[in-house]
């Protein structure tokens, strides 16, 4: 097992309002091949910003980023756009919190699932692309793939859309999948299904996953390692069992204490 992604000293600063606003400070992450790492922390702690930086989506002028994000020998923060683009969607994929708005409303599902194949592997012909899309859709649990292929996003439920997003993200067989609160907008049973799906993808394809969530119990179920963030800083990180079993930091303790415990009878 080797290190696939190495983030060191990531620092993100906004200059939207005339003065620097720090969103992320000294973020470090070593992602091993085939590993699932969780990032937890309160709202506004910089989880999404770190993830977006890794995915190469923070390219606005008013944002300064320092540090290094090493992937495949390239620093994703400084490499040229072409190199970055060749990774995006093919080697590094991301899914968002809002499955309702993350799909293009006027494009058919099949088209959207195939898009990254179309971009990164233009040599694959149409028929083969469709085959691969259907196969991927079946793999993420869309059993009616043949029909869904021709549908539009508004015809699907939130859970199905999130599966479509995962199918679209996974079709190029990326090495890293970043999931930013992929289950927050879904109900509890669907949440559990999506988490199972991510687990299955990780096991069968060896995809490394960065799983961002508010939900510590989901993180506990899914991740081997966890990073706890507060106000743009990492306050604690380590094996999930260790962090949740014997938290060192006060903030982590508070977070864990805040998990609602349900006692049913017994």
């Amino acid at each position, binding site marked *: 097992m080797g290190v696939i992604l190495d983030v060191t000293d990531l620092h993100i600063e906004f200059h939207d309002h005339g003065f620097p606003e720090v969103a992320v400070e000294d973020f470090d992450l070593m992602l091993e091949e085939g590993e699932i790492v969780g990032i937890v922390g309160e709202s506004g702690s910089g989880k999404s910003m770190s993830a977006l930086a890794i*995915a*190469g*989506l923070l390219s606005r*002028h008013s944002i300064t980023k320092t540090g290094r994000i090493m992937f495949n020998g390239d620093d994703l923060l400084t490499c040229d756009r072409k190199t*970055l*683009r*060749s*990774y*995006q*969607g*093919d080697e590094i*994929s*991301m*899914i*968002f919190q*809002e499955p309702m*708005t*993350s*799909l*293009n*409303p*006027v*494009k058919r599902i099949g088209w959207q699932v195939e*898009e*990254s194949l179309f*971009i*990164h592997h233009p040599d694959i012909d149409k028929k083969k692309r469709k085959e691969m899309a259907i196969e991927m859709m079946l793999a993420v649990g869309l059993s009616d793939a043949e029909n869904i292929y021709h549908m539009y996003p508004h015809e699907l439920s939130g859970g199905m859309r999130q599966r479509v*997003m995962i199918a*679209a993200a996974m079709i190029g067989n990326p090495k890293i999948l970043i999931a930013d609160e992929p289950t927050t907008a879904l109900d509890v049973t669907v949440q559990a299904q999506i988490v199972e799906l991510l687990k299955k993808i990780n096991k069968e394809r060896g995809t490394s996953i960065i799983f961002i969530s508010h939900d510590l119990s989901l993180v506990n179920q899914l991740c081997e390692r966890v990073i706890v963030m507060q106000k743009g800083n990492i306050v604690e990180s380590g094996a999930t069992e260790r962090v949740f079993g014997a938290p060192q930091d006060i903030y982590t303790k508070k977070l864990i204490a805040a998990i609602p415990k349900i006692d049913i009878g017994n």
Partner: protein
Amino acid sequence: MRNKCAEVIKKIKKDPYMCAGVIITVIILLMIVVGLFWMPYEPTKMSASEKLKGISFKHIMGTDNMGRDVFSRVMYGSRVTFLIALGTVFIGAFMGTLIGALTGYYGGLFDEITMRVIDAMFAFPSILLALVIVSVFGTGWIQLLFSLGIAFIPSFARIVRGEVLRCRNTDYVESAKLQGVSDVRMIFVHILPNIKGVLASSILIGFNNAVLAEAGLSYLGVGSQPPYASLGKMLSDAQQYMFTTPSYCLCPGLVIVLMVLGFSFLGEGIRRWE
């Protein structure tokens, strides 16, 4: 396929705007298309003995001051007007969409500069702007078409820019970016299809404005040249006979009104389609 057609027709029948729009537009188009193959008289043929006749069986829209058949001339004139309006909208919509999409998507200094130029153009009424351009390029229907086309760019550019700006920050554009979609593909394949509804109704409205602008410019004498006249030119020629032979100016006027009305209704119908 047949099922789909029936469904569309049913939907059209349900909406009075769409219904009226389709009927009126079909009548106008029919007149233009038939005029390509057949007209009751040669539109330029003069007749000294039949000057300024009113409506009759022989001339269903009467004749003009040179004894030419007004109906034949209206048929021909609607073709000229229609083509100029179509060309105008095509140039305006094409260039406007291109400029609006690029400025909206990229923003920054490029957007800032381009939009100030567009704003400056927008500050003049398009007729005035076209008039200026015509006076530089000379008169004739090709010149007219291009000057009107250029004059129509700003309004399309603004509309498209606004829409692209709205789409640019949506989640689906972000996720497409994450898939490594290039800028060109993002703008034209991912974003533009999302604004085609807005674009379609602006094109119809633009078409109307173009018909009216063409009529206005021809009225001022800078449009198509005699003996082949557009509707606007006919109207301006007819005005001095307004009281002696009302049919001469009423008929082309009516056709202009119908053309504009038909497309307005269509535009409204499309807006309410969903």
